[in-house]
């Protein structure tokens, strides 16, 4: 029980996601106000279950003035409306205090367009399904009454079917017609060209048949085709939109606010995109820089682990440059912006991301390859059937009917469903295991991986130092000083020592240490030179010295610990035949130690962000299919360039959106992702195989002239059903 209450205190009560820290930010710049009603949309990370939903909504509703708080669990957007004096920061802090990551959110136009496209497809699908049901009702009567039904009744039923089909074909079919038309105008052909051709020909032939009182009308077949194709198209659009939303997170990071010092010396909160070169920016302790700054005033320790991968903080002072993404640890800093947010290091990484996207866009999915084979095959077959029947003395009417029925029955219903259904099922099962897929085709790329490149800090390791040499009494004393500091090493001491009181007269000396008095005796916690101790000969990890009156200096040693399942997972991956490699921005000693522990032969230390990207390029050139796993800003470029990439849940937003998938929990997720993607690829190949086998049976029946509308309807729905059921096996195999 205690475990459950502990988890409920912070983050997801079901334990589906770890408590997510928020980045300090000012939210007042994102509030929209209308007639006294203020609204704010927040992007919440770490909310995964119904418990999170009620926890967040109830807590917010209890805040004074809040009229409405509604959280969307699917996309993590939280909308809050309130009146009165409550500030936006109060709202955001309330959610952050519950253990969720909060950032301001403003929707851009491309996300809106993608959403309306998805909605259009859903409506078109609904309309087509309505028409299909009604036309089928009439068609079944015609098939059932075959031989008994009078010609007039049959023609009347055909006529009504046609009247239902025509508006629906125009409305729901416009997606295919417009795309096909656009492609033809540019002199290309895409998948929509044969689809449109089949739809129009099926409808045209049916009108002709109805007008001449013929026995076979294909209205049902053309609408069924439309309906199945729209299902596939809708699933595809939905997955694609989720991908775009992921990319949008990059913009959400840029949306963060910062404090500008005006001419009158007062600080005001502005949005990151409002910063101009030369602005004076105040960076409070605990705040992450949004733009590159040249420090003009103050001295403080900064944590650059997200920028360079360096796990130890360094001291920065006046005249030095602070890069966007760095975290200010102890003292407020004032600096001059070196350019707008779009010119910061962050945006250079954004350029790298774009380059990576372009490389990835060239990737040809299995579906594309299948279509390239399929289109010429079907059209040649239909044309040959037409010519052959004419030469054998059939009437033009009969030959056209056979050619069209060939096109209808081979129309790629199953082909259009084969990939999207498998991708949707796989991403759904991964989601349940805490792995969030960013793009559908990522599964295909993940299945091809033969080389694994890992970042060290925060990916292989926990990213936060842990105290390894503990001293009972001195530890408690030192903790009094450490509690006043934000420095990661101080935090590690506090974590081991537990809660307690804070020393008096605390003075923090940036880059040196903390000074304070306990029981009116003065103590120092900091670097060896500063406290006056001699540095030990062999020092593997970061360390702190602690001295006081009448006591010998005490050494505290720290270590960045490995993820608990790291060695196990990597051994298993090695067994799969993957090449392993560490690519880190950290110092050589730190990286080699980890590499030795994990028995990884290839490692590179002190690699710059561009260095990481270059290494990925080199591996690509060598023909390796690389899976990159990383969390820092410095990994983002490499993540985008890799054949496939993964980021842990605690990663920087930029890195998350550069990756194909984000996982929560330990490195064990890597194995899950790889096996699910392999399985999905297999199922997709099976599906295309099934679709091909179906055509092998259907084409001979069609070209020999044995297809009736009844056979076409059965064959088409059966093949789509088989493909869908086969895809559902991915889910079954996982549990």
């Amino acid at each position, binding site marked *: 029980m205690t475990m459950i209450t502990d988890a409920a205190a912070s983050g997801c009560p079901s334990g589906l996601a770890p408590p997510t820290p928020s980045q300090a930010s000012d939210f007042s710049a994102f509030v929209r106000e209308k007639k006294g009603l203020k609204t704010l949309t927040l992007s919440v990370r770490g909310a995964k*279950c*119904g418990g999170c*939903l009620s926890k967040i909504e109830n807590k917010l509703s209890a805040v004074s003035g809040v009229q409405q708080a509604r959280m969307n*669990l699917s996309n993590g957007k939280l909308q809050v409306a309130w009146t009165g004096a409550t500030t936006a920061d109060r709202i955001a802090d309330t959610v952050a205090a519950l253990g969720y990551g909060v950032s301001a959110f403003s929707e851009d136009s491309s996300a809106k367009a993608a959403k309306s496209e998805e909605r259009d497809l859903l*409506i078109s699908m*609904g309309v087509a399904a*309505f028409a299909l049901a*009604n036309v089928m009702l009439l068609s079944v009567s015609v098939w059932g009454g075959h031989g008994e039904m009078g010609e007039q009744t049959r023609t009347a039923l055909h006529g009504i079917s046609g009247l239902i089909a025509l508006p629906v074909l125009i409305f729901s079919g416009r997606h295919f017609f417009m795309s096909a038309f656009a492609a033809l105008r540019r002199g290309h052909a895409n998948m929509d060209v044969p689809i449109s051709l089949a739809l129009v020909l099926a409808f045209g032939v049916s009108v002709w048949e109805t007008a001449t009182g013929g026995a076979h009308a294909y209205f049902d077949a053309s609408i069924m085709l439309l309906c199945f194709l729209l299902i596939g198209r809708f699933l595809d659009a939905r997955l694609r939109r989720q991908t775009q939303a992921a990319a949008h997170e990059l913009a959400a990071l840029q949306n963060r606010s910062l404090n500008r010092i005006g001419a009158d010396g007062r600080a005001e909160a502005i949005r990151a995109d409002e910063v101009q070169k030369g602005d004076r920016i105040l960076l409070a302790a605990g705040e992450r820089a949004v733009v590159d700054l040249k420090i003009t005033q103050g001295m403080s320790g900064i944590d650059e682990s997200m920028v360079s991968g360096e796990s130890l903080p360094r001291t920065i002072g006046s005249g030095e440059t602070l890069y966007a993404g760095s975290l200010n640890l102890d003292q407020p800093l004032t600096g001059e912006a070196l350019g707008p947010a779009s010119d910061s290091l962050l945006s250079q990484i954004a350029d790298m991301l774009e380059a990576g996207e372009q490389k990835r866009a060239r990737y040809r999915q299995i579906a594309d390859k299948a279509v390239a084979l399929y289109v010429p095959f079907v059209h040649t077959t239909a044309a040959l059937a037409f010519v052959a029947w004419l030469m054998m003395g059939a009437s033009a009417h009969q030959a056209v009917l056979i050619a069209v029925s060939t096109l209808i029955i081979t129309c790629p219903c199953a082909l259009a469903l084969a990939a999207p259904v498998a991708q949707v099922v796989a991403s759904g099962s991964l989601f349940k295991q805490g792995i969030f897929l960013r793009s559908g085709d990522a599964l295909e790329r993940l299945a091809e991986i033969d080389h694994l490149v890992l970042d060290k800090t925060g990916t292989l390791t926990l990213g936060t130092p842990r105290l390894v040499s503990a001293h009972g009494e001195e530890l408690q004393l030192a903790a009094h000083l450490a509690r006043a500091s934000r420095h990661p090493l101080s935090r590690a001491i506090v974590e081991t020592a537990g809660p307690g009181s804070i020393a008096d007269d605390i003075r923090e000396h940036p880059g040196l240490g903390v000074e304070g008095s306990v029981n009116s005796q003065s103590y120092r916690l900091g670097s060896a030179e500063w406290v006056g101790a001699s540095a030990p000969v062999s020092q593997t990890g970061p360390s702190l010295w602690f001295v006081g009156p009448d006591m010998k200096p005490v050494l505290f040693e720290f270590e960045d610990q490995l993820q608990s399942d790291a060695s196990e997972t990597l051994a298993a991956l090695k067994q799969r035949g993957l090449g392993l490699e560490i690519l880190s921005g950290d110092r050589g000693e730190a990286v080699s130690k980890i590499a030795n522990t994990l028995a990884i032969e290839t490692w590179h230390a002190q690699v710059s962000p561009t260095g990481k990207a270059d290494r990925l390029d080199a591996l690509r050139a060598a023909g390796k299919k690389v899976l990159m796993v990383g969390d820092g800003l410095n990994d983002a470029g490499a993540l985008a360039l890799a054949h496939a990439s993964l980021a842990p849940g605690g990663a920087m937003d930029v890195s998350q959106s550069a990756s194909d998938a984000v996982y929560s929990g330990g490195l064990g997720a890597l194995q899950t992702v790889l096996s699910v993607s392999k399985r999905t690829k297999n199922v997709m190949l099976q599906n295309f195989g099934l679709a091909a086998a179906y055509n092998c049976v259907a084409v001979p029946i069609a070209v020999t002239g044995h297809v009736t509308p009844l056979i076409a309807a059965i064959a088409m729905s059966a093949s789509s059903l088989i493909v869908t059921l086969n895809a559902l096996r991915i889910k079954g195999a996982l549990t």
Partner: protein
Amino acid sequence: MTIIIYLIPVALGLGLLGLGAFLWSVSTNQYDDLDGAAHRILMDDDAPLPRRSKLSE
């Protein structure tokens, strides 16, 4: 067979009713948060019901 003159419009009408309901559900954002809706129905933190004795008075 004249009965189909009535039955076909009736069938179409029923279908249109369903279509109308579907279009309404799409336009009122019913499909925006499928995961949230699944959890919301299980939340039982409603306000307590008024006491029975009060109602009968």
